[in-house]
């Protein structure tokens, strides 16, 4: 349902943008990406309805048009996935439907957009503007388009961005038949809000960002509906237990910093959030180190380690509350852009670990093939990963670019 409503939110800026299209030099491009992915699970399912393998197809297209000496542009980016195992994973979203105007010292962007904040790799702590499209991937990197009016003011001492967010998008969750879900299902038809305005609560945010020499810095503030729901157990009509997403109000102050020198990147993100149950803080920090031309080859080896902390402990709404990540990325720098990425996320109290290995390579000029495996091990019953203990998988994805 929320998709249809967000559509209406987006129509206004589009109409506005179309009305502004003048004559003159125009550059337009239409691109698309079609994906076919399949996963095989090493172990049998925990729940009836789940299967040993699944498959899905996706399409992401982007239309972009710029004119007025690159001052104005519109971007339309629809996304759709058809999943043959989990009907909740079959979904449509407008990742972007926006108009942009670039002035000499400021920029205005209106419509459905995606915005990224942050510096760390294993968890995007301060990144709060967009809702997570969790059904796409458990890593939380996929986001839903967020309706906004966003102005960026560019000054010698940094960029200040203001965000007016008039509409809230609910998080997507796996359905009964999907793997990689928690043992208790999330009932997306029974969503609750702290605010009486529900999804129409007016949220806002402001962010300053700048770089000084080797330092990249940002400070942000957000006031509005928490994108991370609290999942509360309720009895459903059939007498079973389900989880209801409860979206509370929050205020968040976030900081981001990165120091870059030679092959070193040192990173830190921290936040403090004021939510219904009180104030808490969390941080993610670590390093990335790149060894160019490792062992005399053309390949680069990137090493990464990050520590993630959340002072709510096991009550945290993220899966990481006291975890260490170690990872390595081998980029072969060959014609096919071959890459190998491996990382492990380990709970420092030994409550649950994740191992991920992913390889990708281009075939011809328009195909990318990715092979990935994820293994969940050693999860204690109270850990987020416990629900995924049977869901170790190997996945193959083919992507064709147009």
């Amino acid at each position, binding site marked *: 349902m929320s998709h249809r409503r967000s559509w209406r939110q987006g129509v206004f800026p589009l109409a506005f943008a179309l009305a502004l299209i003048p004559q003159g030099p125009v550059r337009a491009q239409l691109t698309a990406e079609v994906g076919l992915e399949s996963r095989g699970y090493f172990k049998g399912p925990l729940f009836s309805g789940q299967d040993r393998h699944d498959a899905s197809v996706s399409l992401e297209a982007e239309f972009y048009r710029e004119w007025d000496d690159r001052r104005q*542009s519109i971007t339309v980016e629809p996304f759709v996935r058809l999943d043959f195992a989990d009907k909740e994973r079959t979904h449509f979203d407008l990742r972007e439907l926006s108009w942009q105007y670039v002035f000499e010292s400021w*920029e205005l962007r209106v419509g459905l957009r*995606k915005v990224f904040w942050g510096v760390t790799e294993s968890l995007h702590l301060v990144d709060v503007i967009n809702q997570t499209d969790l059904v796409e991937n458990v890593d939380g990197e996929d986001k839903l388009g967020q309706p906004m009016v966003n102005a960026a003011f560019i000054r010698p001492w940094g*960029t200040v961005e203001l965000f007016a967010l008039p509409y809230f998008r609910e998080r997507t969750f796996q359905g009964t038949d999907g793997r990689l879900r928690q043992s208790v299902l999330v009932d997306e038809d029974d969503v609750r809000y702290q605010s009486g305005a529900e999804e129409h609560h007016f949220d806002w945010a402001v962010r300053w*960002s700048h770089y000084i020499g080797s330092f990249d810095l940002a400070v942000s503030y957000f006031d509005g509906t928490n994108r991370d729901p609290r999942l509360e157990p309720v009895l459903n009509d059939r007498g079973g237990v389900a989880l209801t997403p409860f979206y509370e109000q929050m205020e968040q102050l976030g900081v981001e910093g990165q120091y870059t020198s030679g092959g070193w990147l040192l990173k830190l993100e921290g936040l403090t959030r004021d939510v219904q149950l009180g104030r808490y803080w969390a941080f993610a920090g670590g390093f990335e180190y790149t060894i160019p031309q490792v062992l005399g080859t053309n390949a*680069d080896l990137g090493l990464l380690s990050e520590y993630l902390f959340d002072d709510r402990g096991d009550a945290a709404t993220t899966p990481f509350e006291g975890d260490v990540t170690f990872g390595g990325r081998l980029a072969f720098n060959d014609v096919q*852009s071959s890459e190998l990425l491996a990382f492990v996320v380990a709970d420092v109290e030994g409550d649950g670990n994740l191992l991920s290995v992913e390889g990708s390579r281009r075939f011809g000029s328009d195909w990318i093939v990715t092979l990935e495996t994820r293994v969940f091990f050693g999860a204690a019953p109270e850990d987020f990963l416990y629900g995924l203990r049977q869901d170790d998988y190997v996945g193959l994805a083919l992507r064709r670019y147009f």
Partner: protein
Amino acid sequence: MIYKRFMSTVMASTLGSLAAGSVAVAQDDGGRGLEIAIEAERRDSGFGDFTSEMTMVLRNRHGEESTREIRNRTLEVLDDGDKTLVIFDRPRDVQGTALLSFSHRIGSDDQWLYLPALRRVKRIASNNKAGPFMGSEFAYEDISSQEVEKYSDYRFVSEEDLDGTPTFVVERVPVDENSGYTRQLVWFDQVEYRVMKVDFYDRRNVLMKTLSYAGYQQYEGRYWRADQMDMVNHQTGKSTTLMWRNFDFGTGLSDRDFDQNSLRRAR
């Protein structure tokens, strides 16, 4: 300005090495190699800004080809290295990726990469100078801006006739410790001081690659740009050709076209 500043640096280092009881390699040609490099830079300075497009053809030793396409925007910065924005169009899986670089005469460059799928700008490490650019035979250091200060120990080698063009041959040594080369030999034509050819010697001081420039055209009645650059790797038999087109000088670009906001919307 640049000339004066640089000559005083050279003199200071000469005095320094004399005091230490050794003779600087750069000086045994009477400073002629450095003078040629400075003159070449002087003739290409003052362009302000330009945009261009490029097709890159990669060939392996069996002659199999693959292509890449990029667009380039460059802003000249007085008394420092240039600012460049590179937008990737092909292969299609990297379309929309863009790289913003602030080159510096002294010290390492600043680089930010835009990853369109995540809408993320990431400051990246700059120690990968010797690595291949997009899987080609061009290293990052071969395509980045070539300020005089990026090399030292300039030495005039000889005058040479290069396919009918009288040239000066100058040897230079990359300053950056992450460079993949011990030295380079550069052929400048004697009339216009354009780079005609470069030989690259690897870390073992063995000839590794040769870069040849062809199809020079003059823009704004002053600035020379080659239409074609061919890099041949003698050790692997692979080669890469860059074909440049649509050079447009004085397009009115400013610092605002080279910040993180413009990086995010570069298409």
